[in-house]
C-alpha cells in the first residue's frame, strides 16, 4: 500500500464483497433449491433459506434415476464424466509430451511440417468441424463409447507448445551429461525430462481435467445411449424434461454435483490451476 487512506481501503473491500456476492449468488440459489422438496419448489416465491431435504435429494439424484435423463442415476453419469475427463487429460499430456520431445530433441525429416500440422489444430475447434468429425467417429464405430468421447479431443497444440517451451529451458549440459553416462533417448526422457516437467504436468492436468469434465457439444453429438451420458449432458436432458414436469430440487442437486469435482479441483489446487491457466494460454 502506498498511502494510508482508510476510506479507499474500505471501498476496495466493499466492492470485492459485493462482487463475490454477485458471483456466488447463483450457487446459493442452487444450493437452497437442492435442499427443499418438490412441493415447496413449485410455490412462488421460492425459498431463500435452506430446507432439510438435502440428503434425501442427494440420495435420490445419485442412486435413482431422474425423469428426462433416461432414468440413469447421476452417480453413474458422474462416473462416466470422471472416466472421460481422466482419459482426455492423461491422453493429451502423454501425446503432447512425446511430440514435444521429438520436436525439440530430434533432427528428422518433416520435423517442421509436423510442428505446423499440430499448430493447425489450434484453429479447428470442434464447433467448426462438427458434422465431418461426427461422420469419422461413426465410421470408426466409436459412437457411444469412451474412446469416441475422448480420443477425438486429445490432440493438443497448446499442451505441445507448453512442453516445448519447458524443454527449451532445460540446459544442454543435461543431455551431454546423460550421454556421457550412456543414457539413450528414452532413458533421458524418463529420467531427466519427465522429473523436470513435473510441476508443469500437474498444472496442465488441473486445466485439462476441467476441460474434459465440462465437455458438452461433443458428448451431446456422439452419445445416444443413456448409459454413456456424462453429467454435464444429463443436466440438459433434465432441463428439457422440466418443461413438462419441473423437478427443480433434483435438477439443482444434479447441477451442484456436476460442478463439484471441477470446483474442488480449482480450489484445492489453486496454485497449480493459476499456473496452468496462465502458462498454457500465453
Amino acid at each position, binding site marked *: 500500500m502506498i498511502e494510508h487512506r482508510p476510506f479507499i481501503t474500505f471501498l*476496495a473491500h466493499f466492492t*470485492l464483497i459485493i*462482487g463475490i456476492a454477485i458471483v456466488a449468488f447463483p450457487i446459493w440459489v442452487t444450493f437452497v433449491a437442492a435442499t427443499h422438496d418438490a412441493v415447496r419448489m413449485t410455490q*412462488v416465491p421460492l425459498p431463500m433459506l435452506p430446507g432439510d431435504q438435502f440428503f434425501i435429494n442427494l440420495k435420490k439424484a445419485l442412486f435413482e434415476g431422474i425423469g428426462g435423463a433416461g432414468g440413469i442415476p447421476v452417480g453413474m453419469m458422474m462416473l462416466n464424466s470422471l472416466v472421460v475427463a481422466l482419459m482426455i487429460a492423461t491422453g493429451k499430456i502423454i501425446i503432447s509430451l512425446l511430440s514435444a520431445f521429438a520436436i525439440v530433441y*530430434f533432427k528428422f525429416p518433416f520435423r517442421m511440417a509436423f510442428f505446423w500440422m499440430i499448430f493447425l489444430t489450434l484453429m479447428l475447434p470442434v464447433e467448426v468441424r462438427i458434422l465431418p468429425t461426427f461422420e469419422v467417429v461413426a465410421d470408426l464405430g466409436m459412437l457411444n463409447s469412451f474412446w469416441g468421447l475422448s480420443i477425438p479431443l486429445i490432440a493438443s497444440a497448446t499442451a505441445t507448445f507448453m512442453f516445448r517451451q519447458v524443454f527449451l529451458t532445460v540446459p544442454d549440459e543435461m543431455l551431454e551429461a546423460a550421454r556421457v553416462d550412456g543414457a539413450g533417448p528414452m532413458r533421458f526422457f524418463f529420467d531427466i525430462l519427465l522429473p523436470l516437467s513435473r510441476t508443469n504436468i500437474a498444472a496442465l492436468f488441473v486445466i485439462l481435467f476441467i476441460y474434459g469434465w465440462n465437455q458438452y457439444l461433443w458428448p*451431446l453429438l456422439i452419445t445416444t445411449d443413456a448409459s454413456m451420458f456424462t453429467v454435464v449432458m444429463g443436466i440438459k436432458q433434465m*432441463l428439457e424434461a422440466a418443461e413438462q414436469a419441473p423437478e427443480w430440487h433434483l435438477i439443482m442437486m444434479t447441477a451442484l454435483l456436476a460442478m463439484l469435482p471441477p470446483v474442488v479441483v480449482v480450489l484445492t489446487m489453486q496454485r497449480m490451476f493459476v499456473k496452468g491457466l496462465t502458462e498454457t494460454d500465453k
Partner: protein
Amino acid sequence: MLKRVHFGTSILPFLLVAPQIIITLVFFIWPASQALYQSLLIEDAFGLSREFVWFENFIDLAGNGLYFDTFRRTAFFSVTVAGIAMASALVLAAMADRIIKGALTYRTLLIWPYAVAPVVAGALWVFMFDPTLGIFAYALNIIGVDWNHKLSGDQAMALVVMASAWKQIAYNFLFFIAAMQSIPKSLIEAAAIDGAGPVKRFFTIIFPLITPTTFFLLVVNVVYAFFDTFGIIHAVTQGGPAKATEILVYKVFNDGFVGLDLGGSAAQSVILMIIVIALTVIQFRYIEKKVEYS
C-alpha cells in the same frame, strides 16, 4: 527451436510424434477438409444424391438476410459479453490489487466459476429467471417488469449475456490481477510522491501498463463468446425465441444436425474457420509484441 545438442535421425522421433499426428490427421485435418469439400456440395437430407455446385452455398449465405442477422447478433453478443466480463473483472482486480490482508481469500472466492461447465451455468441462470418460478423473475415482477425470456427476444439475449459474462469474470480477474501485480511498485510510489491519487494512478500508470493483457483478454473473450457459449445458449434458449439468441456456432449446429442442410452448414463452418484463423493470427502477433516489452 531445435536443441543445439540433439539426437540424430532414426525411426524413434517418428514413433514419438505418431500418436499426435495420427489423431490430428484423422480427427482434425480430414474432417476440416471434408467440411471444405461439403461446403461446395448440395446434398439432399437423406444423403442419396449430391451435386457439386462450386460456391453456391456461400453465395446463398451472402444473399441470405437471416445469415447477416446472425452475424450481427453474434458481434453484438460477443462485444457485450467481453465488455461486461472484462469491465467487472478490471474493477475487481483494481480493488484486490490495493488489498494486502485477505487478498488470497478474495481471489479464491472469485475464481471458481471458471470451473463451472457452460451448460451448468446456463441451468443455474435459467432457473433463477424461470418466468413462473424464478427468484429474479419474481423480483422483477414486483417492480413491474414483466419477465419472460421465452417470449421476449431482448430478455432472452440479456439472459444469455449475463450467464456468459458471469462465467468469464473469473478468468479475466486472474489475468488482470497478475498483470497489475507485475507492475514495479517503484513506479506507483514515484507517482504517489508526485501527488497522483489512486484514481489518477490507475488511469495514467496501471491501465496503460496492462494494455497488452487487456488486448490478449479481448481476443480470448471474443473467442469464448463465439465458441464456448454454445452450452449456455443450448441450455437457456435453444437459440430462441424466434432465433433472437442464435449465434453463428449455434446456427452451424442447428442447420447441420437439426435442419440437415449439410452443404449450408459446412459453408458456415468454413466461414467460422476463417474467423478462428484470423483471431489466432491476431493473438500470436500480440504475443510477439509482448516479448519485446519484457
